[in-house]
């Protein structure tokens, strides 16, 4: 069901037609839909490292971002580090935040909902005795993540909640966090 028509065409800056036709094209040719996302990392010093992303694979060939992006990660000073960047777990939160928010915009566009502002805060609880090896019953990762959205849009509360729910359903990072993934780490 689409919502009522508005006087001005809804524009959240998302090209939904392109996304929908991509979906159609890719469901007919599943091989083109097989992507590989990549990152590389270099250790700098201590807990400080720099990851870069540039190339990826998709639509049957190698692809490139417009520029190479880099992300510094480190730990804060209370962990006796120099705090040259976000902690890796904060980068995970940032990834989830961006993924869900992109989803909100895309779903809103598709449902004809004009967004005025969207913001969210994320919080992941963690008992650091896990990573410190102080208690083997405590897991390393988050014990839960809380995401709180503030959304101003031409839509009812139910419609806004549906946007947020649907964006979780379609989110890659949400899936990565909520479901297990096999991870293989090798040394060359």
């Amino acid at each position, binding site marked *: *069901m689409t919502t009522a028509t508005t006087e001005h065409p809804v524009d959240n800056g998302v090209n939904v037609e392109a996304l929908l036709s991509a979906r159609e094209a890719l469901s007919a040719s*599943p091989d083109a839909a097989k992507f590989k996302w990549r990152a590389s990392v270099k250790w700098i010093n201590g807990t400080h490292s720099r990851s870069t992303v540039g190339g990826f694979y998709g639509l049957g060939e190698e692809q490139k971002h417009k520029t190479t992006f880099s992300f510094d990660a480190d730990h804060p000073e209370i962990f006796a580090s120099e705090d040259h960047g976000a902690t890796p777990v904060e980068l995970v939160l940032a990834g989830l935040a961006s993924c869900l928010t992109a989803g909100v915009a895309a779903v809103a566009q598709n449902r004809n909902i004009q967004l005025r502002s969207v913001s969210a805060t994320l919080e992941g609880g963690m008992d650091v005795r896990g990573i410190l090896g102080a208690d083997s019953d405590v897991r390393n990762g988050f014990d839960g993540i809380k995401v709180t959205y503030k959304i101003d849009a031409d839509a009812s509360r*139910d419609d806004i909640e*549906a946007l947020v*729910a*649907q964006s979780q*359903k379609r989110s890659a990072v949400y899936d990565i966090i*909520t*479901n*297990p993934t096999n991870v293989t780490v090798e040394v060359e």
Partner: protein
Amino acid sequence: MRTTAVVIGGGQAGLAMSWWLSKRSIDHVVLERGQIANSWRTERWDSLRLLTPNWQSRLPGYRYQGGDPDGFRTMPETIEFIQGYAKSISAPVRTHTSVTSLRRTDDGYQVVTDSGSWQCDAVVVASGACNMANLPAVAETVPKEINTLTSMQYRNPGQIEDGAVLVVGASASGTQIADELQRAGRAVTLAVGEHVRLPRTYRGKDILWWMDAAGVFDEDYKNVDDIVRARNLPSMQLAGYPDHRMLDLNSLNSIGVRLVGRLAGINQGKFQLSGSLRNVCALADLKMNRLLNAIDEWANENLVSDQVDPPHRFEATKVEASPPLLADITSSGIKTIIWATGFRPDYSWLDIPVRDHKGFIRHDGGVVTDSPGMYLIGMPFLRRRKSTLIDGVGDDARDLSAHLGRWLRGQRRPKHRRLHAVNH
């Protein structure tokens, strides 16, 4: 043997098609590998009742005549109903005849069976949407010590070894089986993925009465936003209990069923459960409320208020604060897994290249456009939201038999006759 049209499958879809073909004077046979209503006889559990009320089983030229239109049929009653339909319309059914191959020939189709083969101009695939259990990939990683069965193999609690049970899937089958096992004294865990929550009764009327009256079931496949999604929707989370009680995750929770996220993996002796439980429940609640809003709107326009109770909303699905993400197989005591994860058709006999990369037959509202003269019926949202329901297949059979009749007339134009004559 030769006939004009062969219908594969003697369930309600094949029979409704047979009624329409007879009405249009098109010679045909219906081939059924077992007995009429084979799926209802052999693939359902003992206590199952239809989730659609008795009145909601209108087939072409046949409907419920009994004194309990709002009741729900047991399986023996359902079999009798379908069998009675075949009899009342004198459907030309050949039972115990399995189709082993369907191929194209120069002038139509050849249907090979385990007792002879048929040559025909047109063919209707009515072999069912639910021939096989659709198992998730994680099914392959279940340790050998655990018994597994599908909802098609489940019959009753007595069949299940002592111990706790994990039911995977929270649609109509999974919730009903979880309810039955928990009430029989088993400790049941229910792994919940996407589902379609519905109340049994709303404002004093059955929810399916509302959906029927408001035209929801008649929605046309050409008018839905996303037909792929509509066709993949899980079944309605409903049950046809004699006391009309509501079956949902809250009712299961209240009798002690443990709700957990989708079963995502099995690793190192542990079930890995998805952290998405809260969202799938939120989605189901939102969608249910959207339907109830639409019903209220429809009621405002079409009913006088004293005909129905006032609008109200149902309690949101309760999810515990931190549902478990891992469950140790040994300490959970789970000895049996029941897969209630949906179905898929079996086309192992189909030798015409009309299937998509997922194995489903490509079609436009049941017309198999890549193979003229071939039709499909009984699939989810084939032409309408109600296409898979006993109550819905009749309209599809009318439309498709009309198309089939037009196609036959086109084939029989003199020019084509002559071409055929040259071929032979």
